């Protein structure tokens, strides 16, 4: 028995992993109350239909997101595209747009009487239907492609130019070299980004409900909303956990075994940018189109709502803005701290147990947030009554929900960190704590910050858990927006939604600024 992780690391990892599986445990407890009727309901044809529809949507969104993200990632890292930095930031902003905004935007654009109706009817064209599969596909692709975009960018930035040069010297054309060398080497990055996209689709309720696509998460909500049936909802939820588990196992298989370390020592060389030439304009148009749909459209609609509503009362945004920032920052810090032991164990002490611990961190992410919130209610009132109703519960909810985003970034940062550095520090007589403080943490800093920024962004727009677990009277921008849209008062929703997006854009900036500063050793 060798390569045993130190006890404290294993214990802290196990605590985080236990928190992460809590929603599944909760579902198990509730599902155990199921009678034959409920089980019979689960095995109906309709459940299988739901399953295929959900998986179909997840796969389609992942494919579309990849089709959008790959060219954008390549354009912003490897070419002489003008304004690469600016495009990168703008292309990440859709992450900051809550689905309850983007869904409405889509309806306001494509719906009957929407923005597109008049111009299209002038040409005698019908407005394309936005309901059902196409709408859900579009909405989810726009809101999730940045996960893949960021992952692929990181992958492209970390590749050693020598690999591509090697391919070119073997007589490959640039295009062939890309598909034979660059693309296969991107596989780990692609798979980790695709996992975030696909599992997000499994959990998403906002878009599928608004656009009337019958998916698993919607069926789960129906049980809570319509029937107050926690048992059957739990059965459906467990089915989703099983699907997630299958996806997670498949991902390990797909991840591949290629090493990540750069082979070169010394100064990292930079790619010579590909000159776009006559392709410059089409490339700019592509970036512009994606930004138009993902950023300009929602901001425009919000501004339009806001201008209409300026006549009405305008409540102060200070309290909900501070609430959002406080909760999201704490959530981001907690997620990164929670991700550290899991990522360390998985990378430095690979084994069945540590791999399983890293994998289970995705469970909470793939479940509809209402299930997650209820599981924390379940834990809170039973085990942590002194924390129930405090901000700590909400931060724990964010931790369980967004952990995989942090685990992913911390994990890839660790993979790029030469393990000899920590060993060298230890052989120089430094304690593990000092080694972490003086060597590992400073070198991981870009990865940790990027993970925190990603969690911050998504926590800013989190709603169901915030409503149920925040201290009573604690307001965030998201709850403000919800309070207004639930009653159809879009004008009042505009200002908090814009403030939310503006603050989130700061997170995007931080995220992008940490890129490419990944440690080399």
């Amino acid at each position, binding site marked *: 028995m060798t390569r045993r992780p130190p006890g404290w690391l294993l214990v802290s990892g196990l605590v985080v992993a236990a928190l992460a599986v809590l929603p599944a445990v909760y579902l198990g407890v509730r599902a155990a109350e199921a009678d034959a009727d409920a089980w019979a309901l689960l095995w109906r044809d309709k459940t299988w239909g739901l399953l295929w529809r959900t998986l179909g949507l997840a796969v389609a969104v992942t494919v579309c997101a990849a089709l959008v993200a790959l060219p954008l990632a390549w354009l912003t890292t490897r070419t002489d595209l003008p304004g690469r930095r600016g495009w990168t930031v703008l292309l990440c902003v859709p992450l900051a747009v809550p689905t309850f905004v983007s869904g409405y935007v889509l309806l306001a654009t494509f719906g*009957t009487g929407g923005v597109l109706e008049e111009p299209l009817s002038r040409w005698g064209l019908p407005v394309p239907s936005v309901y059902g599969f196409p709408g859900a596909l579009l909405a989810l692709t726009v809101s999730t492609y940045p996960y893949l975009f960021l992952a692929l960018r990181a992958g492209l930035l970390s590749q050693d130019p020598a690999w591509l040069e090697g391919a070119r010297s073997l007589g490959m054309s640039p295009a062939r070299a890309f598909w034979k060398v660059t693309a296969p080497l991107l596989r780990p990055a692609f798979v980790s980004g695709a996992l975030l996209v696909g599992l997000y689709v499994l959990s998403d309720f906002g878009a599928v409900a608004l656009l009337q696509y019958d998916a698993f998460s919607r*069926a789960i909500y129906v049980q809570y909303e*319509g*029937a107050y049936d926690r048992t059957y909802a739990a059965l459906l939820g467990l089915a989703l956990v099983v699907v997630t588990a299958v996806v997670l196992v498949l991902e390990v298989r797909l991840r591949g075994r290629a090493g990540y370390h750069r082979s070169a020592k010394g100064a990292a060389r930079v790619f010579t940018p590909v000159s776009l030439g006559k392709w410059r304009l089409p490339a700019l148009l592509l970036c512009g189109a994606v930004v138009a749909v993902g950023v300009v459209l929602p901001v425009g609609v919000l501004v339009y709502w806001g201008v209409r509503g300026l006549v009405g009362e305008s409540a102060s945004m200070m309290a909900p803005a501070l609430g959002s920032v406080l909760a999201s920052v704490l959530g981001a810090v907690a997620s990164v701290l929670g991700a550290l032991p899991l990522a360390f164990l998985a990378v430095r002490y690979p084994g069945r147990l540590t791999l399983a611990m890293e994998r289970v961190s995705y469970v909470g992410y793939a479940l509809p947030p209402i299930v997650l919130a209820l599981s924390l209610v379940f834990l809170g*009132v039973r085990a942590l009554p002194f924390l129930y109703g405090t901000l700590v519960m909400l931060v724990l909810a964010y931790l369980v929900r967004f952990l995989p985003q942090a685990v992913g970034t911390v994990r890839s940062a660790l993979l790029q960190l030469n393990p000899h550095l920590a060993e060298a520090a230890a052989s120089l007589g430094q304690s593990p704590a000092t080694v972490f403080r003086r060597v590992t943490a400073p070198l991981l800093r870009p990865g940790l910050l990027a993970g925190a920024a990603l969690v911050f962004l998504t926590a800013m727009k989190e709603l*169901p858990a915030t409503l149920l677990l925040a201290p009573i009277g604690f307001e965030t921008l998201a709850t403000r927006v919800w309070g207004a849209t639930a009653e159809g008062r879009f004008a009042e929703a505009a200002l908090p939604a814009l403030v939310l997006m503006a603050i989130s854009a700061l997170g995007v900036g931080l995220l992008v600024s940490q890129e490419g500063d990944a440690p080399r050793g």
Partner: protein
Amino acid sequence: MMRKLLLTLLLSVASTALAAEPLTVYSGRNEKLVGPLLKKFTEKTGIEVKVRYGETPQLAATLLEEGDKTPADVFFAQDAGALGALGNAGRLQALPKATLDKVDARFRSPMGLWVGASGRARVVAYNAKKVKPADLPKSILGFTDAKWKGRLGWAPTNASFQAFVTALRLLKGDEAATAWLKGVQANEPRVYKNNAAVVEALGRGEIDAGFVNHYYLYAAKKSNAELPVANYFVAAGDPGALVNVAGVGILQGSKQVESAQKFAAFLLEAESQTYFSQETYEYPLVKGVKTAEALPTLAKVGSPDLDLSKLDDLRGTVKLLQDTGVL
């Protein structure tokens, strides 16, 4: 502002230690609607109120999960079904008779576990540019006619719709309910997330008629007075004329029973009832309070003779909805 925020946090931590505890309300009704009313309650009684706002069903699920350890004293729900579910789970305690008696027996729990605070009628909302009232059927059952193909909208996940289907089952039997659902389904209705979305779609002209609660129209007209949508009330006594309630119940295990009872009583005072009537266009349930002018009276709507407490047989309804492929 930061100080206020920290204070809120501190309060939430320390609240259990404080002597004069405020009343904790879980409200499935929106802050815009209920906020001013709660303020009045505090002004009047000096009892501080802390509110957790959320969606009624999610709050109900939370209350069921919290069990007797819930910090909530009062549940202010959007519909009777949620209250029924909590009552059935033994989570509600009996209200004082004086409070219950203020409201018609049809609009409260027969076991006295909850009481309606305001009424909401099921209506057919229609696009006034595309449909004339004369074209609309007298009974909700008439919408199975093929001429409505592609013109209808509904929100089958919505609790108030499901309450209506339950009423339909109780009044006409499961077979008739199944036939109706299948008939409407054959007309390929558009499915919306909630009532507000149906009214919004009517305004855009996406559909011609939709099954909703009566007051969404007035809320929508507040932000857009020219919305080309109107309400149509089917004949009195028809299942489609069901009047459901938003109501209130006191949680089992509340340590503020007295304040909670005061709160329930407050909602039924003339002032509050008038507020519902004037601000949210809902039906006041206490005699002597005027209905909003735009609305037909409760008596005229003619809610079918039905015990609302039976509307909590939702499992059967959801099963029916799922068997017919509506859900």
